[in-house]
């Protein structure tokens, strides 16, 4: 067989297949399906239990579907101050924390990728290093510091929520900077240069040219930041008083301290996890969209 005919064969088939490949594929999907079921089991129990009447809830019957759909448990969960106030607090925390952190990360990333300054090669690794500092390592000095600033718990009118937001903004910077730097590094230098020649300085190039094309990076960064601020427990626990409790603390308290029916606990947990899902659904579509289309020769 000549080289050409071999190549022709290959391109016709698309790829090389063995005769076992149909069975291999079936097996592969079966295994994946089994894993998916395994991981979704707790979610199933949570959803099913949350939709049950309190009389229907029992440990032996936890795998059964509800006889009758009931949203009572959600109402009951929402009526608990720890959940409702916690939910509002978490929104007040996670929205600014993710927005501001992403904006600052975009600015950092832009400068590090496209407006190289002397020493950028040192600054970037230093910022990245922040990502690898575990929460526990800074916890005690941070508590001390925030107490001295009167931003922690009791002394603060927001119950420590403002200080907690600040912490999440700053702690998020390394990862948002990394996300935006990588994204901007993939944008052609010529677009940035073109804007300079057109008369825009650094700030205007950032706002008019770079920022509009960085929506995918914003999507990623917002999802990441929102999720980590929303799900944080440790900082929330240390930094806030009752008034400023985020929902993670509220959830923990009603589940551990008070004795409440399973269905209400499950409904609370479901409520607490909805916003992160929502953010993913809303912003996830930016992930794949190519916003650079048409800029270059193409």
């Amino acid at each position, binding site marked *: 067989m000549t080289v050409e005919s071999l190549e022709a064969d290959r391109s016709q088939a698309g790829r090389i297949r063995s005769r076992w490949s149909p069975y291999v594929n079936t097996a592969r999907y079966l295994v994946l399906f089994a894993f998916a079921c395994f991981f979704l089991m707790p979610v199933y129990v949570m959803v099913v239990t949350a939709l049950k009447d309190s009389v229907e809830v029992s440990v032996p019957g936890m795998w059964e579907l509800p006889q009758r759909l009931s949203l009572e448990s959600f109402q009951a969960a929402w009526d608990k101050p720890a959940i409702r106030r916690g939910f509002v607090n978490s929104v007040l925390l996670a929205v600014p924390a993710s927005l501001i952190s992403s904006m600052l990360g975009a600015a950092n990333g832009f400068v590090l990728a496209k407006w190289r300054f002397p020493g950028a090669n040192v600054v970037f690794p230093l910022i990245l290093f922040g990502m690898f500092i575990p929460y526990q390592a800074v916890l005690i000095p941070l508590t001390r510091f925030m107490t001295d600033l009167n931003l922690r718990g009791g002394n603060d009118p927001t119950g420590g929520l403002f200080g907690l937001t600040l912490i999440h903004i700053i702690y998020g910077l390394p990862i948002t900077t990394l996300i935006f730097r990588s994204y901007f590094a993939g944008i052609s230098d010529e677009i940035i240069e073109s804007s300079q020649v057109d*008369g825009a300085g650094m700030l205007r190039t950032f706002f*008019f040219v770079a920022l509009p094309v960085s929506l995918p990076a914003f999507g990623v960064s917002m999802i990441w930041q929102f999720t980590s601020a929303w799900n944080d427990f440790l900082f929330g626990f240390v930094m806030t008083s009752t008034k400023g409790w985020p929902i993670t603390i509220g959830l923990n308290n009603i589940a551990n301290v008070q004795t409440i029916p399973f269905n209400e606990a499950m409904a609370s947990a479901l409520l607490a996890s909805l916003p992160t899902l929502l953010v993913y659904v809303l912003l996830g579509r930016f992930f794949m969209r190519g916003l650079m289309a*048409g*800029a*270059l*020769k*193409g």
Partner: protein
Amino acid sequence: MTEKTPTAGPVGIRLERVSKRFRGGVLAVDGVDLEIEPGEFVVLVGPSGCGKSTVLRMIAGLEDVSAGRVYLGDRDVTNELPQHRDVAMVFQSYALYPRMTVRRNLGFGLRMRGTPRAERERRVAEVAQVLGLDHLLDRRPAALSGGQRQRVAMGRAIVREPKAFLMDEPLSNLDAKLRVSMRTQLSLLHQRLGATTVYVTHDQIEAMTLGQRVAVLRDGSLQQYDTPQRLFREPVNLFVAAFIGSPSMNFVEGSVSGGTADLAGVRVPVPAGTPLAGAERPVIIGVRPTAMALATANGWPQLTVEPSIVEDLGDERYVIFDVDAPRVDTDATRAAVAARSADETSLLVTERARFTVRLPTDVPVSVGEPLTLSVNPDRLHFFDPQTGAALG
């Protein structure tokens, strides 16, 4: 573009001993002097890596100047930021702003310079009309074809009425046909606008057809800066001779003695009255493909050859043959050949020099049939084998 807004109009550009050394020590541009008249169309040409784009980027301010000075008109802009230089640049990739419509792309430079909205809209509309973009104004770049994007990139520069246009291989991403037509359009546009233009290309045909003057660069230094005519007729060295002209000049090693040159065994008179006429030395002889013709009784020295390839192009014919003299293989000719399309480098290396000659199609020529050619002695070029400099 009929009524001029109160701008100063085109200005000249002057480079004085401009050098660029990149971090890491590579000397990309080495002491280039270049004077561009107001309204002139100058082409920088050379093989890739010769520093032509770096020179352009230094004029734009996108690259720091390591040594020397850059003047726009009378103003020393060496240390000025690109946004303050008032030049417009067309990039190879077009570099359109992807999230803006064509209208906003065109108006961006004016907006950044604080041109009032009404004035901006008028100028955008005018340029869009000239370039045939009026029906595309509300599209995003993604919805445009390659040629349309190219025109938007051009329009974005024109609309600003800048002091100078800088173009970095703007046609190289178009297909061959569109490239030729855009080349004509560019010439017309320049005639109409009369703007100072610096144009970078690696394509010597583009350089010859577009440039009022052409600067040939090699390894960061300026080889020759002259009109296309003079570059072709009086190349200052082997590199320029090999780089300019298509098909390229034929070279052969030879020698001069007693007022004649030995071209593959044929004695060809050296122009009288030149220093070379009295010299006795080895030389490299260059012969343009058009400097040979079918032998007639005009008294020109004659050479009998055996064609090895005949390329028929319809109204002209290229005949390729080996001559009985050593092939010229210097850095200069190699660099020039490498810079041209890859198919011009020979697959089969022979030790003998290979010549191409352009002949009319009215006389039949076939491979292997001996053919007698005459050489125009006035159109021979002589170069120093060591330095590559033109002699005579």
